[in-house]
């Protein structure tokens, strides 16, 4: 058996390597920037460095997401000693020009610079995304140099499993997947569960349209997830773990796969991790396109190779999960928070955010908003700060109409609630949910019944078909919404729609069905007049 990685040594070596060259060029290689052409930019810079023999002068580092996707591809010039300059909307030609003028002539190009002093950057607090734009996701050394795996080492060598759970409890962290269940409670349940075989599952089946924080974590900081899983498994006595990833995220699968192999080679996974008695086997399982598999019992069915239909709870997974063994399912973002909590302590984490919603939350800002991208803010940040300060408000002279959170299970929050702090309870009170963190801003050109219909179509298509209200009820609600949007709806339709909302909400088997009416209920609550304005004047025939 090979010796485990020496975290300290690797970290030192990596830090020294930083000062090997005068310049470091970091280019965002996340999916969003790659879509915008970052791959060609990275190639262009690497090419140029090689052709012009600047290897001793410049090192090119592809990194994870820097956050401001709408300004991508992003590139950061870092001079030894500190000075940093960020460039936006970089093309291959521009990248060459930047390197030439920055490195060779020492002249920055202000017209292409990105001002990192704007609130988008300064108002964030990054824990989960701390390594975004900084480390090279493909190199474990890069992660280690930024404190990676020190939390695992700390937990394994200095903490009893129970102490780890206590630290998580002190942190007060709640599940980032949507419902906000206290993480420590789940861990305690698994820890207390009987049996030798226990499983930890990382839920990376990020299905909410408009949310991509989990993908970003898996792609840009895969070791952070692995470290979180390892700590969770250690704390709960699990010996096997699965990472369930959507098939739509091939880069995440590829990077996680590599990261797992590298971690195993370095004795951070596998048998006798870091020469302790703790062993853990981690496997990736790939989804195949079913939103409902984000629901934990459906997810387990899918891991077992079956149709992803949810089953009734109880028994809860922590009593009887995968193949009947106790199983705990945590969201990817939740697990990404674990290492920092162990490193900095639960009290540090609890000091961020609000009393009941601690820590930070990552949001994917999109829609009718100036700055789109991934942001991370303390829980309880007012929605207005997110939309107006960080997001830069609605572009093109439009007016803010609503913010949609929680995807097809969430709701639309109107402008009068812009000052609401974003935390689990406040959003729920407004008829929406935190969800996985998609935050879509809509301007006054968007029709709310149309938006409700969009989400209902989603829920209808994604219903597994097991229970009657969700399978047939979503179809009926969609029909009615279609009629209303087409201008043929009647008062009776509106009444039936509202009744169906309560039927489907209260009688569906799983969270997907129970939450499917939320977009309708919340838009009816805040934008009822829009529905009424669309109703047909006369009695419709059928």
């Amino acid at each position, binding site marked *: 058996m090979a010796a485990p990685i020496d975290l300290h040594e690797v970290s030192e070596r990596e830090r020294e390597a930083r000062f090997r060259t005068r310049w470091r060029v970091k280019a965002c290689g996340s999916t969003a920037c790659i879509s915008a052409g970052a791959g060609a930019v990275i190639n262009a810079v690497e090419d140029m460095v090689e052709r012009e023999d600047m290897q001793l002068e410049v090192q090119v580092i592809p990194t994870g997401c820097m956050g401001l996707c709408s300004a991508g591809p992003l590139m950061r010039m870092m001079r030894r000693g500190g000075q940093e300059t960020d460039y936006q909307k970089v093309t291959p030609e521009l990248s060459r020009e930047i390197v030439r003028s920055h490195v060779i002539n020492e002249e920055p190009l202000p017209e292409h610079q990105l001002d990192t002093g704007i609130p988008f950057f300064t108002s964030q607090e990054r824990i989960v995304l701390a390594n975004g734009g900084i480390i090279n996701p493909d190199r474990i050394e890069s992660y280690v140099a930024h404190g990676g795996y020190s939390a695992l080492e700390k937990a394994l060598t200095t903490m009893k499993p129970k102490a780890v759970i206590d630290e998580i409890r002190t942190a007060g962290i709640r599940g980032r997947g949507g419902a906000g269940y206290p993480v420590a409670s789940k861990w305690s349940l698994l820890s207390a569960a009987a049996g030798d075989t226990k499983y930890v599952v990382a839920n990376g089946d990020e299905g909410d349209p408009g949310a991509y924080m989990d993908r970003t974590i898996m792609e840009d900081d895969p070791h952070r997830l692995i470290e979180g899983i390892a700590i969770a498994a250690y704390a709960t006595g699990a010996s096997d773990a699965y990472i369930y990833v959507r098939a739509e995220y091939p880069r995440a699968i590829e990077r996680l796969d590599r990261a797992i192999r590298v971690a195993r080679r370095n004795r951070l996974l596998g048998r006798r991790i870091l020469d302790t008695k703790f062993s853990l086997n981690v496997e990736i399982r790939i989804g195949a396109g*079913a939103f409902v598999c984000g629901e934990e019992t459906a997810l387990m069915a899918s891991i077992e190779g079956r149709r992803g239909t949810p089953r*009734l709870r109880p028994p809860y997974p922590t009593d009887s999960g995968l193949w009947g063994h106790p199983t705990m399912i945590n969201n990817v973002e939740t697990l990404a928070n674990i290492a920092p909590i162990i490193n900095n302590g639960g009290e540090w984490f609890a000091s961020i955010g609000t009393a009941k919603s601690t820590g930070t939350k990552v949001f994917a800002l999109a829609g009718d908003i100036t700055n789109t991208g991934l942001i991370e803010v303390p829980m309880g940040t007012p929605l207005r700060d997110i939309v107006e300060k960080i997001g830069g408000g609605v572009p093109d002279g439009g007016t803010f109409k609503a913010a949609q959170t929680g995807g097809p299970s969430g709701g639309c929050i109107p402008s009068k609630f812009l000052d609401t702090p974003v935390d689990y309870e406040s959003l729920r009170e407004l008829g929406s949910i935190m969800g996985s963190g998609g935050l879509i801003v809509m301007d006054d050109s968007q029709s709310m019944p149309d938006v409700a219909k969009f989400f209902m179509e989603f829920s209808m298509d994604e*219903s597994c*078909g097991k229970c009657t*209200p969700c399978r047939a009820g979503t179809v009926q609600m969609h029909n009615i919404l279609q009629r209303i949007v087409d201008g043929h709806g009647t008062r009776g339709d509106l009444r039936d729609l509202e009744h169906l909302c309560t*039927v489907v909400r209260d009688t569906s088997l799983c969270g997907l069905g129970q939450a499917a009416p939320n977009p309708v209920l919340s838009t009816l609550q805040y934008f009822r007049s829009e529905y009424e304005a669309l109703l047909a004047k006369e009695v419709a025939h059928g």
Partner: protein
Amino acid sequence: MDRRPTVTVHFDGVEHEAFVGESVLECARRLGIPIPSLCFLEGISVWGGCRVCVVEVAEDHRLRPACATTCVADMEIKTETPRLRAYRKSVLELLFAEGNHVCAVCVSNGACELQDMAVQTGMDHVRYDPQSPKRQIDASHPKYVFDPNRCILCTRCVRVCDEIEGAHVWDISYRGESAHLITEMNKPWGESMSCTWCGKCVAVCPTGALSYQGRAVGEMEHDPAMIKRLALARNRHEWLYPEEAK
């Protein structure tokens, strides 16, 4: 006498004894308290999909399926409230709107659990639009007919074929509103190599979706209690069935 340990539960405010581990539905049936149900079938696993048997439990705002809720001590169960009546009726309406249920021309007319549930839940008409799906009848089997127009996806046939007969001829394909039953690799039933012609699926079908060849309107009779008798024979080696089995 049954000597299993018991717990005290309340059905609609009245105190009763429930066996430990017994489901709310089983207990209610034993006590003669009517709770409508469709996908539940004694002798096979619980599916919990039809949502007809929902009950209210204490302060839980969400309704619970009686078939899959285990009785625990001091549980306060409500089986009959205006809210439950309204919801059960809506679920029935959704089922009727979803398929093509034409009682007047159905083999199971008069001996249909779906029809009975409609009566029991007070469904006198369907508020929702009929989805009028286009579904092909499979009459390829020499002995049986499958009419998906009348299928409510209760999966009794799937479960009974897998769990009792061990053939697993049936399963559900696709999902959501497109979900439908298939035999083997979506082949005509008559071509199935694994079907043993045992007829259990037909016996347990709550509607006219599965029937014997050659039956005319109203001539079909099912025998869902067959599974309970089988289970008793198999698990408890009892071949002389208690009264309620028949």
